[in-house]
Structures are given as structure tokens and as C-alpha cells.
């Protein structure tokens, strides 16, 4: 059967560097940092990292209470990003409930903050008498997806991939496949995560969180740099509106880019450590899906979280794929690691930069780690409008994910 071409017609972002794709993209191109010192981390015993990239300025009351009562912060971020994506895509309201529009939005976990608040109260007397009706809806694994569908009246397929840092990259890939297969016409896809000290601790106990830049937070996240020392956690949401090209053209929607390739694989060599060959295999499969060769790529947006092992492994896999022929950068130097949201936030920003004709360099990449040599790492913004772009996200649990985008030319 013939597959439907899939395009991106909208994108929404809630991030430490702005609450819209345009704001975020401008901040990334200016080389700004969303990372700051977080005093509350001083009170967590054993935690050494004190920095994070947090979302500011969200008024929960802009969301009607009827919908908000079942939302933790991550669902609010996902809802607000989804609304932006629909607005940017000029998506007709009457399509939301036609059964051909879906939602694929995931998070690493249900809300840890809600869970902590509940158990802090529960452990005082082991009573469930104060348990509110909204609790479960904030804790469930598909909280973001369900809340977005409920609040926007979307009646098609609802899925919630949960693969930690690869979550929203997978969400975009699964949406691409469902639309390509003709099962849905449009899907809001992406991810969301909310900051919690436990997330920082997850990396810190593995010696993978940044601890050396607590006094200089904006220097803390520095992918590929010789002086990097680990992940800086972020939060937020990224949501893309994917749509069949046929549907987008029929309704005269603005087309931002095409999704032309996707692969996701399981790396069984370790549940925690990256493997170069597994990363390479995932990227190769995505290129095969797109029907292009590696030399046709003109930019790669790396996962690169500023960890010692992960950045080296990804560079080695990229070098194996295309050597130093393709410019590579990571946005995590600006934004920290937004975890389940990172794939869709970074894809959205990449699409915006493809259209603006300027690609952001990796922030804080002053001295390239000799072990990260072999690829062309961007230390300055690059003025190009790439045709084919590769986007990686890799997650603990051995989950690898790659998306291939193609710029859209109206012809």
C-alpha cells in the first residue's frame, strides 16, 4: 500500500527559554541559557547538583478548573504547548472530534510532585480519607496525553509512550507512522516533564549530573566540551502537529517541514550505558526509512546531554555515519535536558531554524573534548537552510530514537 506523506503544520513549546516556538528559537540563536541555581536542592540530602532549567511564568488559572483539576504541571505544559501547536497550524476545531485526529504525548513518569505530596500526607496516619478525586489522573502514566485529549475534545487515538529521554522523539515517530499508514489524519505528538529533585538525583547517583558549576549555573550544561561534567535537568513540553500532507494541502495549512524517516531500537548491551554501534544502527535504519544516504544530511541535532560517556558515544556513532561532513549541535547547553520533552522541543526548534536559515551552535562548547573529535561540531551559529536533517534522542533503558526531517518547499 502507498504511504501518506507526513508534514509538520504546527509546534508549541513551554520551556525555560520561552513559551512559544518563536521565543525559544530566538533565545537559542542568541545563545541564551535557561539554567539557574535552584536553592530547594540544598535541602535534599546527598544531592550534589544544584542547577536546573525551570519554566517560569505559567498561570495555571488560564486553564479552566474543570480540566486543570486532573493536571499536574507536566500536563499543564503539554496542554499549553498543544494549544500553541493547533493555533500555529490553523487547525480547524471541527476536526478535533472527527476521530481522525489523535494525541501521542508521553512523560517519563506520572507526576512525581503529586505523588510526593500525596504520600507525605498519607504517611502521617495512613489514611486515604483526604485523597482527592484528581489524584489518580495526575499520577497515571498517560496523564499528559489523556488530559490534552480531554481538554481539547480530541476523539481519535490516544497513546502515551514512556521511554524517558526518548519519549517525545518516539511520540513523533509513532505519529508519523500512524499518519503514513492512513490510520489518522493529524496527531498532536510530543512529550512533557516537570522538574523534581528526584530527577536530578537519578543522574547524580550515577555520577552523571553536573555538580561542578553550582556557582556558575549558566556554564553547567556544555555538551561535547572538555570541561563538561554531566546533565543539567530541565522541564517543559514540546508538541508538534503532524498531519498527512494531503490533509494539510486540502485545508491550505502552513507546512513547516516533512517527517520522512524514523527508527527506534533497543540497545540491550546495558540498561544505562550508551553503545556506539546501537546508536549507529538506529540512525542507519532511520536513513533507510527516509530513503536517503548519510551524505545527503546537512545538519544533525544531537541528543548530547553533556555527560562524559553519552556525548563521546554519540559523536563516535555520528562520525561512523558521516564523518566530519555534516554540522552537528545540541541545544542542551541552552536548555538543559528537558527529558521526555527534549525530542519534540528540539525538533520544533530545529524546524524553526531550518526555515530561518540559521542553526544554533552548542552553547558553552569552548574547547571540544578530544574524545569528541571526528565530527563537525558547531561552535558558532551556521547560516544554512538544510534540506535533510537528522535528530537523535537516546534514553536510559537502552532506548534509541532517530527522526529524519526534510525541508518543505511549496511547489
Amino acid at each position, binding site marked *: 500500500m502507498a504511504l501518506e506523506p507526513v508534514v509538520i503544520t504546527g509546534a508549541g513549546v513551554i520551556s525555560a527559554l520561552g513559551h512559544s516556538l518563536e521565543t525559544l528559537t530566538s533565545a537559542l540563536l542568541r545563545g541564551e541559557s535557561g539554567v539557574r541555581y535552584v536553592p530547594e536542592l540544598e535541602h535534599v540530602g546527598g544531592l550534589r547538583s544544584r542547577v536546573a532549567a525551570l519554566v517560569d511564568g505559567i498561570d495555571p*488559572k488560564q486553564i479552566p*478548573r*474543570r480540566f486543570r*483539576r486532573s493536571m499536574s504541571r507536566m500536563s499543564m505544559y503539554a496542554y499549553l504547548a498543544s494549544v500553541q501547536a493547533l493555533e500555529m497550524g490553523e487547525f480547524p476545531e471541527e476536526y478535533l472530534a472527527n476521530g481522525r485526529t489523535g494525541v501521542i504525548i508521553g512523560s517519563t513518569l506520572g507526576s512525581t510532585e503529586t505523588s510526593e505530596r500525596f504520600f507525605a500526607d498519607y504517611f502521617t496516619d495512613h489514611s486515604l*480519607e*483526604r*485523597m*482527592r*478525586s*484528581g489524584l489518580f489522573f495526575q499520577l497515571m502514566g498517560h496523564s499528559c496525553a489523556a488530559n490534552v485529549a480531554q481538554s481539547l475534545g480530541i476523539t481519535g487515538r490516544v497513546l502515551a509512550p514512556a521511554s524517558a529521554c526518548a519519549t517525545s522523539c518516539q511520540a513523533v515517530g509513532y505519529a508519523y507512522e500512524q499518519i503514513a499508514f492512513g490510520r489518522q489524519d493529524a496527531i498532536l505528538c510530543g512529550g512533557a516533564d516537570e522538574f523534581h529533585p528526584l530527577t536530578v538525583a537519578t543522574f547524580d547517583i550515577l555520577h552523571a549530573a553536573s555538580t561542578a558549576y553550582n556557582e556558575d549555573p549558566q556554564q553547567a550544561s556544555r555538551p561535547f566540551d572538555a570541561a563538561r561534567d554531566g546533565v543539567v535537568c530541565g522541564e517543559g513540553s514540546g508538541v508538534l502537529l503532524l498531519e498527512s500532507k494531503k490533509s494539510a494541502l486540502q485545508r491550505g495549512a502552513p507546512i513547516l517541514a516533512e517527517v520522512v524517516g524514523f527508527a527506534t531500537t533497543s540497545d540491550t548491551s546495558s540498561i544505562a550505558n550508551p553503545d556506539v554501534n546501537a546508536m549507529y544502527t538506529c540512525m542507519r535504519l532511520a536513513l533507510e526509512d527516509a530513503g536517503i544516504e548519510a551524505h545527503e544530511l546537512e545538519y544533525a541535532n544531537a541528543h548530547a546531554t553533556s555527560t562524559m560517556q553519552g556525548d563521546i558515544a554519540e559523536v563516535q556513532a555520528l562520525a561512523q555515519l558521516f564523518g566530519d561532513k555534516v554540522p552537528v549541535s545540541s541545544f542542551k547547553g541552552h536548555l538543559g535536558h528537558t527529558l521526555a520533552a527534549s525530542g519534540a522541543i528540539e525538533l520544533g526548534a530545529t524546524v524553526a531554524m531550518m526555515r530561518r536559515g540559521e542553526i544554533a551552535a552548542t552553547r558553552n562548547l569552548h574547547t571540544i573534548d578530544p574524545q569528541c573529535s571526528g565530527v563537525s561540531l558547531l561552535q558558532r551559529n551556521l547560516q544554512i537552510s538544510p534540506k535533510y536533517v537528522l535528530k537523535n534522542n537516546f534514553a536510559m533503558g537502552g532506548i534509541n530514537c532517530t527522526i529524519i526531517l526534510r525541508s518543505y518547499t511549496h511547489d
Partner: protein
Amino acid sequence: MTEQEVIELIDSSLAEEFELERAEMTPEANIYEDLGLDSLDTVDMVIVLEGAFKFKIREEESVRAIRTLGDIHQFVLTKVAENS
């Protein structure tokens, strides 16, 4: 507590929990049609009232008959009188 104090505590607790406009909170107001609550909210309403008045009402049959804010006032006033 006086009757007026009980009613004030009910109304202020429900207004805070459900973000209600006090002007709309008349005794005749239907909690579903006029105040916009639903079945999930009534679960939380019981918890809010139990917290405010330190009584247990979850198992009370008469809770299910409540339709108006005035019904809530009367129900709580009766419970408060029983417990005093």
C-alpha cells in the same frame, strides 16, 4: 459556631476549592447546573467539608440527595448540631 459562621465556613471552603464566585453562591443555586460542579467535584466536596468541620460524612445516604447550596447548608447544620 453560630449558624451564620457555619454557612460562611461552608461557602468560603467551597469557593476556594472550586474557584466559585461568591455572588453566585446563593442558597438556591444548583451545585451542578448553576455552580458547574460534577460527580468528581462532589467527591472532593465531601473531603473539603470533612476537613473544615472535622466530621465524617462520606457514608451518609443524605449526602447523595444534595442538589443546592442550601441543601449543603442544611445538611452541615444538622450534622454540626448532632455533634455538639
